[in-house]
């Protein structure tokens, strides 16, 4: 995976992709703004969400143990996974134990993060995504490019082509003469998926929240596919990041207001499914909860960075981000794109790779993400904090950069030296090029003219005219 600037270049050069992204992000950001403006206590809800999450994270061990106890008491089984490999192994063994070779899936960021589908496929188990957008991505052998709308980069004509060409090889083919109207596309997906729901014996999900006091898991969704996967199979396996726990039911009151408005601009999400362990004659007879760390406790140890763990994955920050809008989700090289991805991914994966080290710089620090975040994650603050980390590690280019910054600071800390430099620049201004040499600088002046340097800097004017 190349670093962000290179990966972004491809998207910027693709006019269809840019039009798709622009249209989708602008539509949803405007709708969100209207939905949020309807609540006169939005600021209080945002503050409450932030505080609930912060308090929970401070006592994460306590709440997780309470959750484990409650889940177990309700007939479920809790598994702890330190990393992706362990989580994948646990899930594979659980599926194997049922004797099944296919599973239906509720859209889940956690399972994408660990690459569960690919792992299961390698182990001979077929995992079927049932969320419409995930289905499009899966059939298109593509990668998701948005947290909530994984196929945001596709338009209707592209989706119709994918359905026509690929549905048949995964199950029920697309109806003859499928058009690109939303109703026909949805009907094709419904028919294709219904077969899978009715056949599947194992469902795999994530969760938006886990309630410690009762061991209840919560999934909110819009299509009803989640409800099918959570209730029809005999075995349900939920893979959930440890940061998703909240202490009690009353805490949900806050998030069930802020999440739908921030993500889909709905007052309430159409389906809220909650399940607690197992019950005779209702829902799955076996329930497994895989609690995923995968770098989260490392992020928790970072006092500035830990606020990223408050994230409820609403994706509002993606939809307002001017960088995401141009670069698209794939450029971030991770299942978490956009502003939250730029701060979460380098914390979960570290900053050793080129793409991870470039992510904290994938922002102009305009602050639009912080403004919309329903749990008030100060994303610009964390970005700068992570830049400090990357710069101090001195990776590619950063040693040189530090030397340049040091030299500049030396001059800027000496007004006499600064004035001398300014004089030299002014005296030689006729010789200054309109375009700059060198990496970065060259590209900078590819699109912009440099201003003409003034005959004298301000401090000279001041000396002559005011002293």
């Amino acid at each position, binding site marked *: 995976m190349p670093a*962000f*600037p290179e990966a*972004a*270049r491809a998207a*910027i050069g693709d006019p269809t992709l*840019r039009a798709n992204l622009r249209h989708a992000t602008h539509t949803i950001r405007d709708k969100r703004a209207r939905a949020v403006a309807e609540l006169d206590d939005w600021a209080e809800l945002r503050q409450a969400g932030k505080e609930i999450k912060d308090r929970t994270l401070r006592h994460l061990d306590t709440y997780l143990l309470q959750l484990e106890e409650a889940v177990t008491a309700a007939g479920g089984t809790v598994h702890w996974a330190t990393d992706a490999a362990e989580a994948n192994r646990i899930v594979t063994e659980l599926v194997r134990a049922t004797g099944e070779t296919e599973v239906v899936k509720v859209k889940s960021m956690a399972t994408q993060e660990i690459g569960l589908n690919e792992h299961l496929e390698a182990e001979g188990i077929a995992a079927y995504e049932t969320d419409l957008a995930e289905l499009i991505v899966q059939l298109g052998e593509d990668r998701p490019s948005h947290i909530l709308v994984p196929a945001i980069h596709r338009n209707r004509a592209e989706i119709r082509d994918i359905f026509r060409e690929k549905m048949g090889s995964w199950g029920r083919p697309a109806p003859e003469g499928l058009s690109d109207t939303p109703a026909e596309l949805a009907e094709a997906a419904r028919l294709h998926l219904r077969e899978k729901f009715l056949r599947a014996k194992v469902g795999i999900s994530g969760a938006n929240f886990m309630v410690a006091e009762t061991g209840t898991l919560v999934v909110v969704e819009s299509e009803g596919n989640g409800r099918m996967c959570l209730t029809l199979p005999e075995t349900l396996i939920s893979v959930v990041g440890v940061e998703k726990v909240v202490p009690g039911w009353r805490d949900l009151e806050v998030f069930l207001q802020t999440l739908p408005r921030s993500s889909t601009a709905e007052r309430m999400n159409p389906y809220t499914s909650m399940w607690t362990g197992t019950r005779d004659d209702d829902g799955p007879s076996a329930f497994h909860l895989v609690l995923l760390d995968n770098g989260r406790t490392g992020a928790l140890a970072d006092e500035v960075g830990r606020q990223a763990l408050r994230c409820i994955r609403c994706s509002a920050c993606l939809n307002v981000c*001017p*960088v995401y809008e*141009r*670069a698209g989700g794939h450029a971030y090289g991770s299942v978490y794109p956009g502003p939250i991805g730029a701060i979460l991914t380098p914390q979960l994966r570290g900053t050793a790779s080129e793409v991870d080290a470039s992510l*904290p*710089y*994938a*922002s*102009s*620090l*305009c*602050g*639009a993400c*912080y*403004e919309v975040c329903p749990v008030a994650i100060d994303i610009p603050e964390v970005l*700068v904090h*992570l*830049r*400090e*980390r*990357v*710069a*101090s590690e001195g990776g590619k280019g950063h040693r040189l*950069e*530090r030397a340049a*910054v*040091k030299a*500049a*600071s030396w001059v*800027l*800390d000496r*007004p006499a030296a*600064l004035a001398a430099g*300014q004089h030299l620049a002014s005296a030689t201004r006729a010789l200054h090029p309109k375009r700059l040499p060198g990496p*970065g*600088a060259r*590209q*900078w*002046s*590819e*699109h*912009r*003219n440099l*201003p003409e*340097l*003034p005959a*004298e*800097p*301000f*401090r*000279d*004017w*001041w000396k002559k005219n*005011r002293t």
Partner: protein
Amino acid sequence: MRVALFVTCVNDAVFPATGVATVRLLERLGVEVDFPAAQTCCGQPQFNTGYRAETAPLVRRTVRAFEGYEYVVTPSGSCAAMVRHHYASFGAAAAGLAPRVHELTEFLVDVLGVTDVGAYFPHRVTYHPSCHGLRLLGLGDRPRRLLEAVKGLELVELPGAEECCGFGGTFAVKNPDVSAAMGADKIANALSTGAEVLCGADNSCLLHVGGMLSRQGAPLSAVHLADILASTEEEPWQ
């Protein structure tokens, strides 16, 4: 009233006219202006790029340069935001400067209590609120109120005004393609207004947008708000 002018490094070296305009404007309003020569750079570019240690001496220098001034005025929302939001993390002395620094429009509207500064600028103008002024300082409608009171000026709405222009300090160098794509959209929006002047209150953003306008040969100039507010019938903007 006596204030210290915090001209900022970009204005000092590249846009001295904005500094001169700020001085003329403030003096016209009866304010006595000092320019503490010990000032250089607030340290924002270094800080935002991840070089906290290299920023510290510049923070100390800036704090020392403005010691003893109750009002420090700057024609840059971005540099004001650096001091206001990040200086506290460099210690108590630096935290003490934060509340004394005022971005120009804040100073005019909140401290001096004026919106009509007696300016004359007979042009069609559209206004781009830079991100740091907009979100970190919360300048709100102050710049617009000042512009609306300018004689002869026709203010036209900029579509997508609150979207970042793509400058972002070193972002423009580290992500040149994304930055240019953002700038191109900003310019297209500005040109759609039919304005002659794109006004902003941060020369760093104007350097980026203005540089793109100039490269395209577009019939639109990027002008700092201070230059507009300083312009009068007797001494018009060039």
